[in-house]
């Protein structure tokens, strides 16, 4: 069992857990992920490692409640435990001194890009951060991002915080201004990463994205996470999760992400029905 030591809500439907998982904490590097299972009937949920404390032996995860499993996860809190927690999986980010690096995080991509930004900064790069969300209240970990970057630009779709617009807007502006950029790292929804790739490709600007395809084992055994990169099939969990953005077939990735949409709906509806049938206290007791 893997105890949840601390839990907090970062934004509506976005939660942060600190998990006691020393073997993972000792090994994790920026860019890697874990797979967890809540309980015996649970599915294997991949989540990015959003930071570790090696001395405490703890791992931080941040998740958005999108479906049944992440909702169920969201009902847990400090004092509860996860049945399974394995990692670190995937390859670490490639970190070296590139020069100037733009780190872009959208939505729950922010906690994923944060350790990468830290590592790139520590390696001597000038790190420009761009973080975005739909609305101000959905923007997460802004202060930590500010600490991890030399400059930080914030965008919201409705302009309720930072600049109004998308994360690609400041990026396009830097490019237009002729700022020297050596690398772009983008983590977020597939559609955002696709947009970033489209913005940098015409300028030959090296761009890395971290893909979140549907996974089962996370160790290269099932092939369910496969994506087409440069015309070749790759397994995201073992060949990635980071790939050259200009080679990724994002449309295929997005269509594959929808593979279980009907079942996901069934699961969620059934889950909500079961929960609303329970006394309300039980539902909210862990807040």
């Amino acid at each position, binding site marked *: 069992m893997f105890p949840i030591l601390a839990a907090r809500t970062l934004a509506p439907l976005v939660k942060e857990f600190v998990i006691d998982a020393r073997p993972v904490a000792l090994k994790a590097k920026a860019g890697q992920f874990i797979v967890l299972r809540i309980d015996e*009937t649970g599915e294997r949920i991949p989540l990015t490692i959003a930071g570790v404390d090696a001395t405490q032996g703890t791992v931080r995860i941040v998740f958005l409640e999108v479906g049944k499993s992440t909702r169920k996860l969201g009902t847990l809190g400090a004092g509860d435990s996860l*049945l399974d927690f394995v990692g670190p999986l995937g390859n670490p980010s490639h970190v070296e001194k590139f020069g100037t690096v733009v780190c872009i995080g959208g939505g729950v991509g922010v906690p994923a890009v944060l350790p990468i930004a830290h590592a790139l900064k520590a390696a001597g790069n000038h790190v420009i951060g761009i973080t975005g969300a739909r609305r101000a209240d959905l923007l997460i970990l802004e202060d930590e991002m500010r600490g991890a970057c030399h400059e930080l630009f914030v965008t919201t779709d409705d302009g309720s915080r930072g600049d109004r617009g998308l994360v690609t807007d400041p990026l396009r502006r830097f490019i237009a201004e002729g700022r020297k950029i050596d690398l772009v790292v983008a983590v977020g929804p597939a559609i955002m990463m696709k947009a970033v790739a489209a913005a940098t490709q015409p300028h030959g600007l090296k761009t890395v994205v971290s893909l979140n395809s549907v996974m089962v084992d996370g160790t290269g055994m*099932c092939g369910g996470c496969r994506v087409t990169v440069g015309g070749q099939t790759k397994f995201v969990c073992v060949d990635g999760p980071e790939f050259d953005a200009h080679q990724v077939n994002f449309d295929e990735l997005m269509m594959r992400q929808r593979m279980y949409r009907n079942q996901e709906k069934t699961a969620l509806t059934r889950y909500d029905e079961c929960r609303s049938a329970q006394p309300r206290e039980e539902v909210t007791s862990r807040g």
Partner: protein
Amino acid sequence: MARKEIIPKKHAMPCQTPAERVKNFAEVALGYSEQTAMAEAARCLQCKRPTCVDGCPVEVDIPGFIARVAAGDFVGAAQRLKEKNLLPSICGRVCPQEDQCEARCTLSKKFEPVGIGRLERFVADTQLWLEPAALPPEPPLPPASGFKVAVVGSGPAGLTAAGDLVRLGHRVTVFEALHKAGGVLVYGIPEFRLPKAIVEREVQALQRMGVELRTNFVIGKTETIDELLANSYDAVFVATGAGLPHFMNIPGENLNGVYSANEFLTRANLMKAYRFPEYDTPIHLGKRVAVVGAGNVAMDAARTALRLGAEKVFLVYRRSHEEMPARAEEIEHAEEEGIDLRLLTSPVRILGDKENWVTGCECIRMELGEPDASGRRRPVAVPQSEHVLPVDTVIMAIGQSPNPLVPATTPGLETTRHGTIVGDPETGKTGKRGVFVGGDILTGAATVILAMGAGRKSARAIDVWLRDPERKW
């Protein structure tokens, strides 16, 4: 002495009827009753020179355990069996007996062989569900050797080695990447052939013997082999299997609705997607399914698809019936259940719609030409014989090779071009000091009992090496 009258055929195995069983995931074969088992055991001639034993990779004392069954001493039979075979309830179910012990049975020259596998299963099952206290006591363990061995992978090779090493007095930790122990036994072979509760029971028995099990631990990621050796283990046995799925590299393979058999079976077995939404893991339920391949894995995938509610399941194989590599019994079961065999047929591309969903599988007919390197006649495409199987799901069951995770993170381990780790087939010794290897990762995809045999041989070799004061490599 009057010559014993020989009953020409094995006593039939009671089975669920095909119509019944395709609607559930319960075991197909139901097992012998005590009477049938004793009657089948009486067929054995108790040969002075029991050739059946030569056919068993772990040298089970077959006449010995069968004599006890004939006498109604099931506890004694189980003890005999367990001396050589740590997992008899599993082998009795999944061993290809027709190529191994039963193929070598004296009776098989004129009649059907003794149902050794069925008897093995019967005997093991009589003990399986007893409370540990009711079981005959395990022989006492030898004095602790003070050595620690890490076993990587909890499939049949790893579990067997772990059990043997504990019995030899060593401390053993099994590291398993997944959340459950058993390897292919839990993620690949379906419930209806091998109930998962049995595997769990066998794993618990090992734990009671003192084997430490660490699931959720990926060697090469959570810790490397070098770290294991540096931190406290005196030797490592690598038994990570052959879990990397192959695809055909034909157009359309990344469409939604195309699975590797590994993924399809893992969702269904390990994650229990057949009980969705009670269990959280979903699986795409095709109405019309094409399974590509004809080995055990393909049969399992096809029969699982049927049980998940598919109306039609095709099995697409480029050679003929004769070359189908699956066990005869599995092919027979699959045909009984209504799997449509499309032999001498090979997929050339998978067709899809705008939303990326599979709409069909374009195939081409084949004919058998000259023998190839494997000695089997090579299938050659018949020009202009393309045709489309209208399916919404395609499952690729064309083989798997070893996962490169361990070799890639372990300097000093040599691999072949098939991705297997190079090691001595007798001892499992590799080119890296203190590291032994066995099972599918050494031989390529093989069988449960061969993996167990490898685990046993390596356990012995590890023991000898650990106790050798010189520890030469």
